């Protein structure tokens, strides 16, 4: 089984990569990607089933907070049934999107305003080293620079310092971070394709 799973992973990876280099593999690549999308959809359903079973267990054991689990299950089942019957694009289902999902997401994002400010103050208290100070000074300069005044942008800060920091200094750092992340991703992907890493099980 260990060898078979490794062969499946390596073969699938090589065929997909082959599609990027050889036109003859393009059809096979499209087919395998379609299969992967289907399996990802099935995996999403399994994940949601796992969420249901975890919260059902909580309710059955009458653990602390099981009332919230019951609310979660009721809302999950109701939404799922309505969306299965009406389909997700139905006008009634827009109530769920525009009335619950988007407002809660936007409100949680809004809460970040307070959380981030608190985190910044804590950072300065706990680790007042050079990197932290540069981090906070940059953030403060850019936030102040982006403030719109009645007569236009903040002079110097908004017109020269802010754009120079974002378009030159931060760009260089971001490029370094992105290239570093890409190199790490490339290495990890190649380790999977060579069978050195087997995150699907099988050591």
């Amino acid at each position: 089984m260990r060898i078979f799973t490794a062969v499946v992973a390596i073969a699938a990876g090589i065929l997909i990569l082959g599609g990027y280099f050889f036109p003859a593999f393009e059809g096979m690549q499209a087919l395998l990607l379609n299969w992967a999308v289907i399996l990802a959809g099935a995996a999403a359903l399994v994940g949601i089933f796992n969420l249901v079973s975890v919260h059902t267990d909580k309710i059955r054991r009458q653990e602390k907070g099981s009332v919230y689990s019951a609310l979660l299950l009721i809302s999950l089942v109701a939404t799922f049934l309505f969306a299965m019957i009406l389909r997700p694009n139905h006008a009634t289902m827009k109530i769920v999107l525009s009335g619950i999902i988007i407002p809660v997401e936007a409100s949680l994002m809004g809460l970040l305003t307070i959380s981030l400010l608190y985190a910044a103050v804590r950072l300065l208290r706990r680790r007042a080293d050079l990197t932290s100070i540069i981090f906070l000074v940059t953030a403060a300069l850019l936030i102040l620079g982006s403030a719109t005044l009645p007569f236009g942008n903040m002079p110097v800060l908004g017109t020269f310092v802010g754009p120079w920091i974002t378009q030159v200094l931060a760009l260089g750092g971001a490029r370094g971070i992105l290239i570093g992340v890409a190199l790490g991703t490339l290495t990890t992907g190649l380790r999977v394709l060579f069978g050195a890493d087997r995150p699907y099980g099988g050591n």
Partner: protein
Amino acid sequence: MVVSLDLITGILSFLFTLLVFSYLIGDNPLFRIAVYIFVGVSSGYIAAVAWWQVIWPRLVYPLVFGSMLEKGLMLVPLLGAVLIFMKISPRLAGMSRIAMAFMVGVGAAVTIAGAVAGTLIPQVMGTINAFDLTLASSRNVNLIETLFNGAFVLAGTIFTLTYFHFGARPKADGSMHRMGLIELSAWVGRIFIGITLGAVFAGVYAAALTAFIERIVSLINFIGNFL
């Protein structure tokens, strides 16, 4: 009495915004109710989307209404989906490894291609193009300014990359140290990383502030409609 969908949406939006903002006075049951309902509703919605936009059109429809060839080709993902569903049972979970291995293999190949074509090449080309004097003159940008800014971008890229170089040799006393030049470059890299993360923080803060203001305005507008 007919209640419009817009009114229901408005009331729900108002209520859930208030419930989430109740977190500003500390963690409380109202906030938890909102978050648990949000998770439940989102999961139910995602499950339905997964069925109607992935499983049904890509798997079930071709299996039922497709040609013989399509039906034959869909037997493989059908078997894969069955294997993945075996994850639900602890006794049969091991069988799902085959399907997981397939997904990991595909994912690895797609990420390799994405990392090379989507990040490495464009970022390296972007760093090189920062010195493109022809492009700069066509945009009426001063050549000295172009070289000056390009040098900073190049330095930032190299020093930041050096920061992620973790190769170190043990010394006689057992301590680990990087080479002097690399250590110095990494130190400068830390400054660039600090500036970059500060810029990212400022961007996220601006987005959060915008969301916060939008929610407050929506609360005021909703109340205003009834006054």
